[in-house]
């Protein structure tokens, strides 16, 4: 066998078009062996994906139309699970809370990191320190962050109200008051996660060529105009991508309400995922839980597809 055939990538047409037909079976066998080797390397991953990703995706949708009890075979129940959900007033509360949470989380978690990144990009000292500390909360296990902030929120000796008291303000009751509970959760989630968005924005800001600012300045653009016509257009892709990712992430909020409020007070922090958890693992109604997760999947896929389109376009 010549070295040229060995160097040729598998699947590429043979350069030697006049090869003798007698060699074809050997070539075929080699292709088969190559493919078997490749699938040998792939088989563990295929098995894991099949069992823990592909199969559950399909099963989740099927379950939404079934009743499961672990004793007899699942029963098809049509749209019953969805009807049960729609009749549950908590279902509507959960969506309202989740959307409100997502909206508030975007106000804080989307704009604040961008402004912080713009600010950090201007500073010329202690850059390493800023980058280090802003990311520290991201490293905290969410359970630790939630329990820590629960202590901070304590209306009596808690850190926040103690600080407010020191300046003469009677602080709110944070988690114990249904008008501030959801906002309190947003603040924890923002504090824990804004480090990653900030550093991603910062990396994007650093790729903006200095000449653009210089040119804008020569044209007499002030700071606001430079922000509008240089900074934002130059980082638009990253801004859009993170916006979509944040919507998808915040709509799946679970750990903070589960640990800090349990959904209360007055169901003001029952989120879609918390309700899903209750249906599945408290009431053992996996069918209705699946109906709910299918609905969540449908809503979130809108954002997922938007994300896909944005990133595809950027690649092309």
């Amino acid at each position, binding site marked *: 066998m010549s070295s040229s055939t060995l160097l040729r990538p598998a699947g590429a047409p043979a350069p030697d078009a006049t090869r003798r037909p007698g060699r074809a079976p050997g070539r075929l066998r080699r292709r088969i062996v190559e493919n078997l080797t490749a699938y040998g390397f792939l088989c563990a991953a295929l098995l894991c994906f099949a069992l*823990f990703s592909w199969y559950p995706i399909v099963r989740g949708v099927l379950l939404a139309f079934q009743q499961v009890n672990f004793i007899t075979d699942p029963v098809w129940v049509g749209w019953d699970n969805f009807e049960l959900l729609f009749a549950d007033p908590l279902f509507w509360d959960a969506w309202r809370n989740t959307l409100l949470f997502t909206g508030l989380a975007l106000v804080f978690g989307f704009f604040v990191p961008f402004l912080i990144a713009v600010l950090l990009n201007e500073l010329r000292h202690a850059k390493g320190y800023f980058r280090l500390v802003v990311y520290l*909360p991201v490293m905290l296990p969410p359970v630790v962050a939630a329990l820590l902030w629960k202590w901070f929120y304590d209306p009596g000796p808690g850190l926040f109200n103690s600080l407010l008291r020191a300046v003469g303000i009677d602080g709110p009751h944070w988690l114990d008051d249904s008008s501030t509970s959801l906002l309190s959760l947003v603040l924890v989630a923002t504090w824990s996660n804004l480090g990653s968005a900030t550093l991603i924005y910062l*990396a994007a800001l650093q790729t903006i060529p200095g000449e653009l600012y210089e040119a804008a300045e020569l044209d007499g653009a002030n*700071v606001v105009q430079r*922000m509008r016509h240089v900074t934002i257009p130059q980082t638009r892709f990253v801004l859009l991508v993170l916006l979509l990712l944040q919507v998808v992430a915040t709509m*799946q909020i679970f750990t903070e309400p589960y640990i800090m409020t349990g959904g209360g007070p007055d169901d003001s922090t029952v989120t879609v995922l918390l309700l899903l958890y209750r249906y599945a693992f408290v009431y053992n109604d*996996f069918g209705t839980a699946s109906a709910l997760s299918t609905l969540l999947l449908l809503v979130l896929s809108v954002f997922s597809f938007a994300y896909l389109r944005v990133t595809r376009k950027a690649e092309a």
Partner: protein
Amino acid sequence: MSDRAVRTLFSGNREGIGYKIAFTVTFVVFTAAFVLPFLWLVMGAMKPAVELAQVPPTILPRTWHPGNYTEAWHLMDLGKYFLNTVVVVAGAWAVQLLVDVPAAYALSKLRPVLGNGVLALMLVTLMLPPSTLLVPMYLTITDLPVLGVNLVNNPAAIWLPAAANAFNIYLLKRFFDQIPTELLDAARMDGAGAVTVLWRVVLPMARPILAVVSILSVVAAWKDFIWPLLVFSDPALQTLSVALQRFAPDTPINLLLAGLVLAALPMIAVFLAFQRHILAGLTAGSVKG
């Protein structure tokens, strides 16, 4: 990059009083927002429970009780939960590398029939929010198809799904794609099989990406809460995060805080040690180029 002055949004010099004020304010606000909470926690954990209930709170502990840390360790039996967590995290890390590295290598360099289709099917799972799979995943591990095994209370219920990580495969494949095929072909001509090529040629070159994937997988496994909460119904097998939230309601607050410090320390240490890799993985993941 620090000395070369790149023009940014503000053109003013960095010597003036305005800059100094802006810098000082930022420094103070950042320290208050991101460092003080940690200090408050570490010190709170060294106060006696009575002192923590006081209004207004003391700033420094009136009497220092570093012994709270050892007391918390014994009271909550944290050693056991640390060990459980290490088993879960180390297993998840090892399984992810063992499964995803060969898969990415095959998709990148061996390029089998339907390889691109397989890759597409894997990448599609990145688009699906993981929490919407909780219920079917849970039902799957209670009765594994074909094998009929129940993986509840078995760390494998965390390890194996962790390997179905399309993002790892994407990162690894993208790195392997940059390794020149001629290099691998040369090794093959010397008689090396596909396994040898992977082990002797590809992996030594892939150390940087292996570090990124390793750190991402360890940090994610350590931080995970909802899936371990579902998998380990037996309290004795729970991970640190799951155990801490179970203990939280009826543990003296100072000991709980000490427990939080101990649970956070390994991740803070990992961050300080591998800061560069972690931040590289962060930007590699979200934004390309």
